[in-house]
Every structure is written in structure tokens, then in C-alpha cells.
């Protein structure tokens, strides 16, 4: 494991960054050119994620969640604004950012022709970890995500839940400071979803900051210390789940605490009416 630590110690320093936020974005903008004109996917996102937090990033489909994550993880160029991750300017020094982050995107980025073990060793080697240390780290991670028995099977034969867990493990090979998870439980059955939640908690307990996008509000409620809701490319709410619920209760003079679903619908301009506790209608 000394080799793993060595790789992290040798990371090149980034530009000076005041404060110890794990992620900070100011006026983050992403425009795409298309045949029909300019698409404003993200229109000026400001957010701060403190080190050690599990930060939830919520929003309806097409709100700009994934685009924001892709900018923060160096996968997309930034049209305007600034972003710092682990204290490093994403636009100025993307390679230094890549040393410090782990990324598990919406579609589990795995090579179906490799075995789980081969994929983790490869990923570790790409981060400059020596062969012996890479093999040892792989065994640790296989145990962490409970895939020891399937380690030598080709990934194409894995279930959706197994692929997600392997993707998570591959994002952790170099012990990242900040872990980006883009909808890590989409498409999983409830049991697999709970397993991923447990793993996210364990990872966070070890000191890793987690930036999580999700469409599942119960997931955000269960996992996140703080969250932000994005809609139409802009942050429309930010705070702890309790703060957001209390704020809605106060603004609407409700008798009981609303759910995070209510907060989300209110924040994104959607409404619903209830009849005897059942959702009757959701409208935009």
C-alpha cells in the first residue's frame, strides 16, 4: 500500500485555492452548439462541497446534473465560470484533478471482455501503482464490494448490480479525495441499491468526499449531508435535507414536515395534489 500512498503524495500541486472545500464552482456555464442553435445546458452554477461531506445533486432529467459532473471531472470543457476540485483549478490543471478524483458515471464504464480482477489491476496500473501493490489493492477492493467470487468472470456476465459495484471499486483504486457518483443506483433492484448505499457510507466514513447525483429522493434523504437541486441549468435550492424541508414547511404553513419529494416538486415548479395520502396528479 506504500506505493498507493506514494502516488498520491507525488501528485503535482495545483494553483492556490483559498479555503478547504472539496468542490467549488462559481458561475459554471456549459453551452453546446447544435444545428438548431446554442443549447445552454448549465447556465451559471454556484456550489460548494465541504471536505468529508456526502453531497447530493438532484434534478429532473435534462436539468444539467450530468453536464455539471462531467465538467467537474474534466470530461467536458467549461464554457464560462470556474471550478476547483480538491483545491485545483479544473480548467488549468485537469491532469492534477484526475489524480485526486474517482469517477463512476451513469453508464458503468467497464470493459465487458475483461474480468473484474483484470479491470481493477489495469485501472490501478493506469494510476501509476506498481504491479504488486495494484494486485493487493485489487483484492482489497474486491472484498469491499463483495465481488471476490466473481473476480475472474468476464464483466459481460455480471448482473447490473455487480457492474455498478465493480465500477465503484474501479473509481477507488487510488484512494481519491473526492468521489463523483453519477446516478449510481439507476436501474438497480432494491437490494442492490441498498448495497451500494452501504458502500457509499463506508467510503465516506473513511474520509472521502462524495458528490452524488441521483433522481431518487429517498436516496438523497438516506445518504446526503447536504444537497442542491438543479433545474434548467441553475441551482434552485441548496441546504441540508432538514433545512430544505423546514423551509418549505414554513413558506407554505404546513402542519407537518414535508417529504423531500415535496421539496423537489416545489423547487422545480411541479405540483401535486394528494387525496387521502395518495399522489393523484403531478404536473409541470
Amino acid at each position, binding site marked *: 500500500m506504500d506505493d498507493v500512498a506514494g502516488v498520491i503524495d507525488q501528485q503535482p500541486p495545483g494553483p492556490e485555492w483559498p479555503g478547504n472545500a472539496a468542490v467549488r464552482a462559481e458561475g459554471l456555464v456549459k453551452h453546446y452548439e447544435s444545428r438548431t442553435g446554442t443549447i445552454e445546458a448549465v447556465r451559471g452554477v454556484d456550489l460548494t462541497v465541504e471536505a468529508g461531506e456526502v453531497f447530493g445533486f438532484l434534478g429532473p432529467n435534462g436539468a444539467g446534473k450530468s453536464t455539471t459532473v462531467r465538467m467537474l471531472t*474534466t470530461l467536458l470543457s467549461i464554457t464560462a465560470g470556474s471550478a476547483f476540485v480538491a483545491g485545483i483549478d479544473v480548467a488549468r490543471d485537469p491532469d492534477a484533478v*484526475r489524480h485526486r478524483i474517482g469517477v463512476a458515471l451513469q453508464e458503468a464504464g467497464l*470493459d465487458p471482455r*475483461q474480468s473484474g480482477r*483484470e479491470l481493477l489491476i489495469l485501472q490501478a496500473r*493506469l494510476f*501509476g501503482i506498481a504491479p504488486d501493490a495494484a494486485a493487493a489493492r485489487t483484492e482489497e477492493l474486491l472484498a469491499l464490494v463483495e465481488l471476490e467470487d466473481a473476480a475472474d468472470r468476464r464483466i459481460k456476465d455480471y448482473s447490473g448490480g455487480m457492474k455498478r459495484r465493480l465500477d465503484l471499486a474501479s473509481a477507488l483504486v487510488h484512494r481519491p479525495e473526492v468521489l463523483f457518483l453519477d446516478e449510481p443506483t439507476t436501474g438497480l433492484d432494491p437490494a442492490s441499491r441498498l448495497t451500494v448505499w452501504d458502500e457509499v457510507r463506508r467510503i465516506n466514513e473513511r474520509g472521502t468526499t462524495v458528490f452524488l447525483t441521483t433522481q431518487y429522493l429517498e436516496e438523497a434523504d438516506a445518504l446526503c449531508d447536504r444537497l442542491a437541486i438543479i433545474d434548467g441549468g441553475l441551482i434552485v435550492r441548496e441546504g441540508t435535507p432538514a433545512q430544505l424541508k423546514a423551509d418549505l414547511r414554513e413558506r407554505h404553513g404546513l402542519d407537518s414536515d414535508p417529504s423531500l419529494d415535496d421539496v423537489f416538486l416545489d423547487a422545480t415548479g411541479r405540483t401535486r395534489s394528494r387525496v387521502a395520502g395518495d399522489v393523484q396528479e403531478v404536473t409541470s
Partner: protein
Amino acid sequence: MTQAWVLGQRALREGWRTPEALLPTLFIPLFFLVVNVGQAAKIFPAASTEFLYGQGYGAFQLPSSLLLAASFGTAALFLVEDIEGGYFDKLRASPVPRSAIVLGRLIAEVAKGALIAAAIVLLGVIFGISIASGPVGFVLLVILTALWAAVFVGFMQLIALKTRSAAATNSAGLVFFPLLFLTPNFVPRDLLTRPMEIAATLNPVTYLMEALRSLILRDLVWADILPGFAVVFVLGALMLYLNVRMIRNYD
């Protein structure tokens, strides 16, 4: 370089584990060799055809088959799979030099190209073709074919990165056929009609074919061999540069 080698090993495993993608690169060129020889061998008898240097017409046609075998560009289709499946983003989000991402695949393509070229040449030898330039010529033949495989896959990877589409990438591979037929494919350059001769002279694949042909039919004639290597080195450097630039600007 370690990262390029690690990615090259991965690409080789990928090829080895997908034999259905590899086998046509061996059989289709052999099929064309048999068909072309069957159609034209009687027109060019070994005894009275000066440009055959005493060998059969199969020896003259072997370079076309080698170039065809090296121009399938299957690695570019694997790249499209990586893009569609999200693994390419995983690599881009890792601190891997962009040149290593390209070189990894090219290393594997050179290895696969060398293996297939060696197999085709050895099959040719079994069926009576001799390599006039000897063991050194055999090695040069394999190396030149393998380097061309890397150049051509570099071109197809550009299409893959630009379009992110398997269909478009596959179609781009067809560009090889005009390149192949605008060469002295069936007869030497000086026997072509004037317009075809001009086209062949402008076509870089001509110099490759003439280098390969020289290695098979004649001794080590460096004036024929070196232009072939110059073509693969110049085009190879260009493809590497363009691929790395495209990955750097990939959004």
C-alpha cells in the same frame, strides 16, 4: 510508456477474446489472393513475364492481400464500443497521457498486424511463393505490413472519435478499396495507362505495395523498400498527432 503498454496488453486481450473479429482479416485476403491469381495467372505466365522475376503471379499479388489484411481497422470498432459503453470516459477521467490512450491501441494493432502478416506470408510460402530477399526480407515484410495496420487504424480511429458511430467507422474503412485499386495492383506502374499511372504515383499506398513486392520478388533493393517505410513513418506520425489532438479536444 508504461501506461501505453498496459493499455496495449488490454487491447491485445480484447482482440484475442474476440476471434470472430480477427479471423476474417486472415481469410478474406487469402480469398482475394486465390481469386485474383485464378483470374490473371494465365495472362502473366511466370516463364515469359519479366516483372515476375521468375515467380508465379501469386507472388506479385501477395502484397495486395497483405495490405488488405492490415486494413480492417477492427481496433477502431473496439474504440467505438468503449465510447458507447462509457469505458472511454473512464480512461479520459484517469491521469493517463492522451498519447498513451492512442499508443495502447496502436501497439496492439502492430502486434496483431504482424501475426496476420506472418501467417499469410507463411501460407504463401507453403503454396510455392518464395521471399527473394530472404529471412531479413521476411521480417521487413511483416514489419512494414504491421506498421501500415497501425497507420490505417489510426485513420479509422479519427472517424470513430469524430462520429462516435460504429456504422460510420465501418463505412470509413471502405476508403481502403479506392486506395488499393489506384495502385499498380495487377501490373507494374509503367504498364498502367497514363491517368492511372498519375493516380498511382500520387497514392502513398503505391510505395508500400512496391516495397512489399520488391521484398518478395527481388533481393533487398533499398531504393524500392525505403519509400514504403517513409510512407508508414510519415503517415503514422500524422495519425498519432491527429488522434492525440482529437482526444485532447474531445467533449
